[in-house]
């Protein structure tokens, strides 16, 4: 089989999986939160820029940040465990497959470089003033260096000693820092360009002579790929429930004892379980952070209308997040055995949902009552909250 087809198939199947997860993310309400956070962040960034003195040594910051980004970065190969048996015999023909992997990794990481440069650009321009380099030239230079580093990373995959791998990476980083510092400070000139080209040639010679004849280390490739996949799943798990990813459990002993207040009876079996699991989950952490953020926004935003709107938006966002409650212990074996009606589980989820929303709506309403100038608006806000609670409770049903 043509290995190029194999590569395309592997890439396509990963793209399909990633697209599937992205759809879930879009539906989960996280997008609304991200847009909100983005707008808030942009406004804050802009305000922050005004207060930053322009003589900040931004060249050094840029040089260190991008040296790190360019020198690190891994190669996605989409190699699978079974390849050790089935593809290994064709190792000498695998060139085009790995070229695909190197190309893919270079493109993805260049996109990340582009986005981060975009993010850092206002600060860079703010500090450099008239000495600011053209954006396109900067991104081009960074991508050239990135591609060279990706090629080096590929060769370094053949190193058997962990320490030596790290050593190579650190050296690349240490070489990049002064290059980028000179570049961000004085721009591209013949001396710098000459130095970069000379460096590339030296590296080429070095990697050729040392690694040219070494064999691929399949175990390492498989391990690296596994790690990359688990990073991907863990990231996605932050938005939706990915089966097979072990979720983190937080003990939270300061709060989890609250379940002792439930009476020790059969009717409370599922309420006990759902409440305890909610408190220990990432979900409750997200809700807590959201509530604190909401509280801060409501306090600092000026005007009754602004405060009221912020109240509504944050309550809605919390409610949407709480839909994830129904994922808690959705497939647990023991439920089949308990002599308790399984419908009680749904009742318990609704109950916990209502409690959490109630606590958050009261908490967020505190600054409303303290700072409102008109008497009617808090009343409107509370009505709004009630409608929202009813609506969201409906959405939690099954």
């Amino acid at each position, binding site marked *: 089989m043509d290995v190029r087809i194999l590569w395309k198939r592997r890439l396509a199947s990963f793209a399909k999986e990633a697209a599937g997860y992205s759809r879930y993310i879009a539906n989960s309400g996280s997008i609304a939160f991200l847009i909100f956070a983005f707008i808030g962040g942009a406004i804050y960034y802009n305000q922050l820029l005004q207060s930053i003195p322009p003589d900040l040594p931004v060249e050094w910051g840029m040089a260190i940040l991008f040296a790190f980004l360019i020198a690190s970065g891994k190669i996605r190969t989409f190699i699978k465990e079974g390849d050790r048996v089935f593809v290994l015999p064709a190792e000498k023909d695998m060139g085009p497959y790995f070229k695909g992997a190197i190309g893919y990794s270079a493109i993805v990481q260049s996109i990340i470089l582009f986005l981060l440069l975009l993010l850092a650009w206002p600060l860079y321009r703010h500090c450099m003033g008239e000495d600011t380099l053209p954006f396109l030239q900067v991104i081009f230079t960074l991508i050239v260096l990135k591609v060279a580093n990706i090629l080096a990373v590929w060769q370094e995959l053949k190193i058997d000693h962990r320490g030596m791998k790290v050593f190579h990476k650190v050296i690349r980083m240490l070489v990049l820092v002064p290059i980028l510092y000179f570049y961000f400070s004085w721009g591209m000139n013949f001396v710098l360009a000459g130095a970069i080209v000379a460096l590339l040639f030296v590296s080429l010679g070095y990697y050729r002579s040392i690694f040219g004849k070494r064999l691929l280390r399949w175990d390492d490739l498989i391990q690296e790929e596994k790690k990359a996949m688990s990073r991907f799943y863990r990231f996605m798990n932050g938005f939706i429930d990915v089966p097979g990813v*072990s*979720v983190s*459990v937080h*003990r939270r002993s300061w709060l989890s004892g609250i379940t002792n207040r439930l009476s*020790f*009876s*059969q009717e*409370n*079996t599922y309420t*006990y*379980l759902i409440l*305890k*699991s909610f408190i*220990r*989950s990432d979900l409750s952490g997200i809700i807590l952070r959201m509530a604190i953020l909401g509280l801060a926004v409501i306090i600092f935003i000026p005007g009754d209308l602004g405060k009221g709107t912020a109240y509504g938006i944050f309550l809605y966002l919390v409610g949407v997040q709480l839909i994830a409650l129904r994922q808690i*212990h959705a497939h*647990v*074996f*023991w439920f*089949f*055995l*308990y*002599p*308790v*009606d399984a419908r009680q589980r749904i009742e318990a989820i609704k109950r916990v949902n209502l409690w959490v929303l109630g606590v958050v709506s009261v908490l967020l309403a505190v600054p409303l009552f303290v700072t409102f100038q008109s008497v009617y608006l808090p009343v409107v806000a509370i009505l709004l909250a009630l409608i929202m609670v009813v609506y969201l409770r409906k959405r939690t049903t099954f």
Partner: protein
Amino acid sequence: MESILQVHQLSGGYFKKHPVLHDLHFSVAPGEMVGLIGLNGAGKSTTIKHILGLLEPTQGTITIHNKTLQESPGHYRSAFSYVPETPLFYEDLTLQEHLELTAMAYGISKEVYEDRVERLLVQFNMEERKKMFPAHLSKGMRQKLMIINAFLVEPALYIVDEPFVGLDPVGIRSLLDLMVERKNEGAGILISSHILSTLERYCNRFIILHRGRIIATGSLDEIRNQAGMPGALLDDVFYHLTGEANK
């Protein structure tokens, strides 16, 4: 005496068209420990799944105290507890919280729960670990959690699936003592295991499953006679019977 569990002409399996179990007929009476033995794939776990109500029989019925699961789910489910072959737990509950949850689910009062749990934790040497999450427990400790969980309920019937693997010798002894104690108090126990030498010493009766059918059943002497091997070890009898059945 009237039996607790009655499996009546049971046929069933994972797919309706391909039954794994054929015409199983047996019972477990109060004060009785019944050993369910058979090779890998003989149908032991499938039989247990049918009793738990996870699979539906294609033919026949299973009753506990004369009621099927459909007739009276609450009554059926609260009459037994189960020790699974591989520990099954909630990642986000501590050992103690698992036990509290079970007590609540089976309607045990707080006082009775505290009384029972204290004894069981000491018996299985798990007192100091009750605040730990399952992720931090070893395989054997998780198995102990499952055992404490099941014996906390004190039901009429225990269904115990291969409990010895992974347990330390003291744990095995504690479990056996506990089963004898409950048996003497009038509970019925259905136990599946490959450790035939242990079953031989503790079980009153045996059910030998082979390819989904019962090929021998009865007390040790009765199955020895069925095999024509008086005085032989259960191990040898079992080996002989499954060998014969393959011919």
